[in-house]
């Protein structure tokens, strides 16, 4: 089996922002660019990626993998009837959303070994450890939001949580335990206002352990979030993206954020009602065009 696939995680910190619709159509757009894609439904316990592909009932799903009924994840890849797009349907066995750690690690190992060019993960909403762990495995994480405030809040909080998690791992791995304590204090920034933004945190960290602080700062500066603002009224309406970008720079010291927009499009609702991917149902729609543009950007 080849072990050279690229993993892309599609994350929607707020539910209902169009993450699953985007995942399915992005898989198709990538396949049209010559990639062999396997889309994996990791919205565990609430999976519906198969429905977007028009698959009513699948013979196999992640349940089979989790319950050891199959030896390999590749055994449960089902055909979507779209050339070069395979699908791993999500499971709904009780407790699958809280998969034991060892099981999760096994799943991650198998994901990296799937025989394809791109593994596209459709993750659950929220910022649970499952979502965080699967997104860390991914070479690229696409964060989906809508321009509304609740969704933007969740995106910001998700990225902040990811920054803290990454710093925590880094400090622990490098034995900088005093900075782990400082990071804990930074979580309560109302009590420690000087740690309200990452610049303040790094200034304080430098006084304790300048080498670890500078290395950690570089890691954060090099984070390159890829933000997809779905359902914008016009193609170049990047207002919401610009604001998140500014806040990430001001508060989290993240210098560069890629922003892509997908226009509001009634073709989406029509295609969903027919259980057909938009790229097949309305290939000339705004949604289809914007998805194709994103696929070109991330194909690598």
């Amino acid at each position, binding site marked *: 089996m080849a072990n050279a696939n690229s993993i892309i995680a599609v994350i929607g910190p707020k539910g209902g922002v169009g993450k699953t619709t985007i995942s399915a159509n992005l898989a198709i757009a990538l396949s049209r660019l010559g990639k062999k894609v396997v889309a994996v439904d990791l919205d565990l316990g609430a999976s519906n990626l198969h429905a977007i592909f028009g698959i009513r009932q699948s013979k196999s799903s992640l349940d089979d993998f989790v319950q050891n009924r199959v030896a390999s994840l590749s055994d449960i890849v089902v055909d979507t009837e779209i050339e070069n797009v395979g699908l791993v349907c999500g499971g709904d066995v009780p407790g699958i959303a809280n998969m034991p750690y060892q099981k999760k690690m096994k799943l991650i190992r198998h994901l990296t070994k799937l025989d394809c060019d791109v593994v596209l993960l459709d993750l659950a909403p929220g910022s649970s450890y499952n979502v965080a762990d699967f997104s860390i495995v991914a070479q690229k994480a696409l964060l989906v939001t809508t321009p509304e405030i609740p969704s933007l809040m969740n995106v910001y909080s998700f990225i902040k949580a990811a920054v803290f998690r990454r710093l925590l791992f880094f400090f622990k791995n490098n034995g900088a335990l005093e900075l782990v304590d400082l990071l804990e204090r930074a979580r309560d920034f109302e009590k420690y206002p000087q740690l309200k933004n990452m610049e303040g945190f790094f200034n304080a960290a430098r006084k304790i352990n300048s080498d670890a602080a500078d290395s950690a700062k570089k890691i954060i500066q090099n984070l390159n979030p890829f933000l997809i603002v779905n359902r914008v*009224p*016009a193609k170049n309406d990047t207002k919401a993206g610009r604001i998140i970008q500014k806040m990430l720079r001001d508060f989290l010291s993240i210098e560069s954020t890629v922003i892509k927009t997908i226009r509001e499009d009634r073709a989406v609702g029509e295609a969903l009602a027919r259980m057909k991917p938009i790229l097949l149902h309305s290939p000339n729609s705004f949604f289809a065009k914007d998805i194709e543009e994103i696929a070109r950007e991330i194909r690598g």
Partner: protein
Amino acid sequence: MLVFSADPLRGRIIQKVLMRSRVEPLLLQTIKQVREAVSQRTPDIAIFDTAGCFREEINYLANLCGTLTQTAVILLGDGLVLEKVEGSATRRDLRLSDPLDPDLIVQKVEELLSLKVEEKRSGDDSLEDTLKGFLRLR
């Protein structure tokens, strides 16, 4: 920004003076093109030149002005024709009757552009402020 003129010469004059002011408008010559352009994206600013238009085309433009609530529309043409577009949402100071005055058009566009930039900035500020408030980052 888009410019519609059924008269190719007037259209090109308007486009050229705007481009001298570093504004690059989309020049359209038919109502069909206008319909397609606004359905794809609502323009911030539109210039509709009624010179050389048929009655139906003028009626269409008048109705369109009423629906483009987020667009600043400058209407050009014969004074009598512009009077008939009274019912549209266009501001009186943005109805520029013939003869065609390129400098006045540029002046109006520049005023509108700075207004739009200001609106955009205050819109950004208010969303950012609200977001920071919810995230306790103020």
